[in-house]
């Protein structure tokens, strides 16, 4: 299961010696198996919020519940895919993908079978023994996603994983992401800058306000899948997201 609830999350940072309220009480409930995209202006605290969900950062107020249980530390029930992938350069693709399994003490044979399945799924089998510097940016991103999926987390947290990609690779991964989601039924929380990307991926889009951020609008995207970015019918959803982004009020 993977129902995750953020209750009144508040986060301050020190800025020029004074506390700066980055997140001003975010409430967000994501149902098990839901795909929620978070959009919001730059610097509003999306990454910070995701890191709090992952347990990599402590909120100053509020709490995170996973299936009703309060979360304190980071752990493999919520796996984060970092914007730059954060792949380990000293390991091969395969060893990167198996890292979390190895940490969990899963025997080599089993580890191997699992990683093989996801490397196949990501069309990376040919590169299992390559090092990450031998991969393109898009391939690295797929390795990062495979590394997260093998952990079979309840919740997948993704921080702008496609931001550094060219549009062709991105389009491909957008389709793949939807397939993965439909296949694995994971709860996914996906941060992006890109409004069309949010409309293609999300079953719901949460729009964050300016700092100190709150959830400004939550928009359901009821539309058939797989969706592609060119689909003009998605335009109406994009318009609604954009207008929610625009009506931010004074900063």
């Amino acid at each position: 299961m993977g129902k995750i609830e953020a209750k009144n999350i508040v986060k301050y940072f020190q800025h020029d010696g004074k506390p700066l309220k980055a997140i001003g009480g975010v409430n967000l409930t994501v149902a098990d198996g839901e795909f929620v995209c978070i959009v919001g202006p730059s610097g509003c605290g999306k990454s910070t919020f995701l890191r709090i969900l992952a347990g990599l950062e402590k909120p100053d107020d509020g709490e995170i519940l996973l299936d009703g249980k309060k979360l304190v530390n980071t752990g493999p029930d919520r796996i984060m895919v970092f914007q730059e992938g954060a792949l380990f350069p000293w390991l091969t693709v395969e060893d990167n993908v198996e890292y979390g399994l190895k940490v969990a003490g899963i025997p080599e044979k089993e580890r191997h079978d699992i990683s093989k399945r996801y490397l196949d799924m990501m069309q990376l089998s040919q590169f299992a023994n390559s090092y990450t510097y031998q991969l393109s940016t898009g391939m690295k991103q797929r390795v990062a996603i495979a590394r997260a999926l093998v952990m079979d987390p309840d919740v997948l947290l993704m921080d702008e994983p496609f931001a550094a990609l060219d549009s062709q690779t991105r389009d491909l991964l957008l389709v793949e992401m939807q397939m993965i989601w439909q296949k694995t039924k994971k709860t996914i929380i996906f941060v992006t800058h890109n409004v069309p990307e949010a409309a293609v991926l999300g079953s719901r889009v949460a729009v964050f306000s300016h700092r100190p951020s709150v959830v400004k609008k939550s928009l359901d995207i009821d539309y058939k899948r797989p969706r592609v970015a060119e689909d003009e019918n998605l335009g109406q959803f994009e318009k609604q997201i954009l207008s929610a982004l625009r009506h931010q009020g004074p900063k």
Partner: protein
Amino acid sequence: MKANLLGKKIAFYVLIIVVWQGIDSADIWPDNIFPSPIEVGEDLLFGLSDGSLLYGIGTSMWRLIIGLAIAIGGGMLLGIFMARVETVNQTIGSLVLGLQSIPSVAWVPLAILWFGLTDSGIIFVTAIGAIFAVTINTYTGVKNIDPSFIEAARNMGAKGSQLVTTILIPAAFPYMITGFKQGWAFAWRGVIGAELLFSFLGLGFLLNVGRQLNDVSQVIAMMLVIMGIGILIDGFVFKKLEDKVMTKWGLR
């Protein structure tokens, strides 16, 4: 290209020997002060044939390896603690910087007082001369690890010693190798220096015997051996290790 480079090197060393022999033949200085390359070569051969040279090399290498192993193990441990625990850095860290400025032979008197004229004393000097270079480079390496590596690993469930062995050490390894290289150089100087002063077996001891016997060619022969071992270890052990790591990391 490679053959060309080798050719140049050989030509250069041949030239040195020829000039050396030339100066010797000019008889400017007496033979007991300025020996010919042939005499030095004979000394080396003699040392090889009676086993004293190999025994000396073996003794020095053994001390070096133990001392360096202690320095690498201890230095890594200390460096990691300094990088990860702020209090350790603020306290021991400042001491490490100070200790590093002490030349390793300056530890000899203390080593003799503490350990007597023993192998342990020489190994102590070797290890202490090398440990801080390893410590400082390990510290720098761990400090420079991309924080997202550590976060990703923790997120996937790694903690404690698992985090150290699977992330901190491999991630900091390119820096650590620099520390090992510096550490080895300090250790080699340390072991020879200590052997000279302890006068207790090893290459440094043989060097000192040469001086006591007024045998300049023996002194030069031992210096050549010390240099030769230095070149070999630099080129074969550390260069290879460095190349391997750098290639694997895609740094070259």
